[in-house]
């Protein structure tokens, strides 16, 4: 198993956002995490990437303990995320955003950068080229020098995917990558996801767009009120009575 999460729990005051949640992700699969608003999907991502600390439970990547590491160490280990509301560097160009994404795969420090130590220029050039390649991969090749702030919402999401990819992750967590995308862009996104998966990166995606979930995912995990209520192939999940109940609500919906 590439990712193993065991007994993850996170409470906010009286609310248990993630409740004794366990999850496994196999190498090479695309796993979708779905659930009504407030089900704990984003909190789960925060716990996996150390943007938030669990009250209980642990996370292993390829057998290595991630629990307790700071976020940047988790990126170094090969677990990278995107955000539900994109967190791009708006004042920087698309290419620069992706180049920042390569931070953990490049070495130049402050002193070396200041004096242009031998090797710095070569690393910089390689970083630029790799950024260009990744931008082309997600279909942003023609907007490499555009400031991130000037991109459309759909393209911002793709840029964030390219930035995450730049860290050469083994596992990528995408938080609602299709939100705000039109149908053409969503189709492009699913192509991009397959391309990333085929290049060897495992993907966990939180998504509300059921069309996309059904198309791309090998497995679906359904959360409701912080608990896992179902897990399985997309076709079966669609018919699961507990899932249908969670989505249709039982009179006291939390959305």
């Amino acid at each position: 198993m590439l990712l193993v999460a065991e007994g993850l729990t996170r409470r906010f005051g009286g609310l248990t956002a993630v409740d004794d949640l366990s999850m496994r992700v196999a190498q090479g699969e695309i796993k979708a995490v779905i659930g009504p608003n407030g089900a704990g999907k984003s909190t789960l991502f925060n716990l996996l990437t150390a943007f938030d600390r669990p009250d209980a439970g642990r996370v292993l990547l390829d057998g290595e303990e991630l629990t307790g590491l700071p976020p940047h160490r988790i990126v170094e280990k090969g677990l990278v995320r995107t955000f539900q509301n994109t967190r791009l560097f708006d004042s920087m160009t698309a290419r620069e955003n992706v180049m920042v994404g390569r931070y953990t795969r490049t070495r130049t420090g402050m002193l070396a950068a200041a004096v242009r130590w031998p090797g710095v220029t070569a690393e910089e050039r390689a970083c630029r080229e790799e950024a260009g390649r990744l931008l082309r991969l997600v279909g942003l090749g023609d907007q490499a020098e555009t400031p991130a702030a000037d991109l459309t919402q759909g393209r911002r999401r793709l840029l964030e995917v390219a930035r995450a990819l730049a860290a050469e992750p083994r596992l990528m967590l995408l938080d609602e990558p299709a939100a705000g995308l039109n149908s053409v862009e969503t189709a492009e996104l699913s192509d991009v996801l397959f391309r990333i998966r085929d290049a060897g990166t495992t993907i966990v995606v939180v998504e509300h767009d059921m069309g996309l979930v059904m198309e791309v995912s090998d497995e679906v995990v359904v959360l409701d009120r912080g608990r896992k209520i179902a897990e399985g192939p997309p076709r079966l999940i669609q018919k699961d009575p507990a899932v249908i109940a969670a989505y249709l609500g039982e009179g006291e919906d939390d959305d």
Partner: protein
Amino acid sequence: MARYSRASVLRFGAVTAVVVAVAVLPLLIADRYTLKVFTLVGIQALVVIGLALLFGYAGQISLGHAAFYGIGAYVSVWLVRSAGMPWFVGPLGAVAVATVAGLILAIPTMRLKGHYLAMATLGFGEIMAVLFVEAKAVTGGPDGLSGISFPTIGSWVLRGPAENYWLVWAVVGVVLLLAGNLVRSRPGRALRALHASESGARACGIDVGRAKIAVFALSAGLAGLAGSLYAHFIGFISPSSFGLQASVLFVAMVVLGGMGSLGGAVLGAALLTMLEFPGVLLPGLPRQVSDIVTDWQPDIYGLTLIFVMLFLPAGLAGLGRSLVGGRGRRGDGGAPASGADVVAPEGKGA
């Protein structure tokens, strides 16, 4: 196809022209007073370049930078005068001590944001201001230290204004080159990234806390270097040069110049330093007028800040960019200007 783009040829030409102009200036200006003012511009520019890296690029404010400037000045004078070291040890020691002081302040405070960081650095500045007055054995107390020796390189004593001018501006040139390399590279991008979105930077694997501490120490070290040059150039130092007013002035210089620009930092330093000497800024200005400007100086600083914040959020550098057209960035494209983004809460959890 040409190897170099038109823009980069123009840029190279402009930079060469500025370097040559700065270098030959002492040959064209006979007036010692004017030359001294330009030297002071260079010294203040060093502080402002460091502060531009910290505030303009990384988005971390400091209202205590004059303290590092002072630390550099006192440490340098102590090393040369009391410890009997040759001059060049002065600036080196100043950089070392100011950098360490910056580290000591940054490690506990860099987790603070926006207003809280402003208050913490302001508090540090005030503590140091008191220390400069009270540590009489080293600082000479409120009366300060006078008769500080000139810089010496071997047996060459840099007595004249032109020599000091060249020394200071050579240092500025080297620092600008190094800082320019820095901002256009991996660590420089990391600073801009954490300014734009701290959680985005974290998600890219940047150790945000460490990067902030490093840039704070770096900018403190540059202020220390400037303090050392200042002490040996001006020959007299006292606590009044290293207080809150100077700290605020340095921030104003960064803001006026443009948050995300090193050249702007130098320009901001030049304009606001010369405002103290209106006769140099506008030669031929009648005495009465220049006296009024001098009297109203703090108000002019304040109004300049307000004006820039309201109408030129990207500072003079941003104005320059939008006049040239350049890379099609909008006025506020360079770097977010107000403190708002620095304090904007980034939600944890969902």
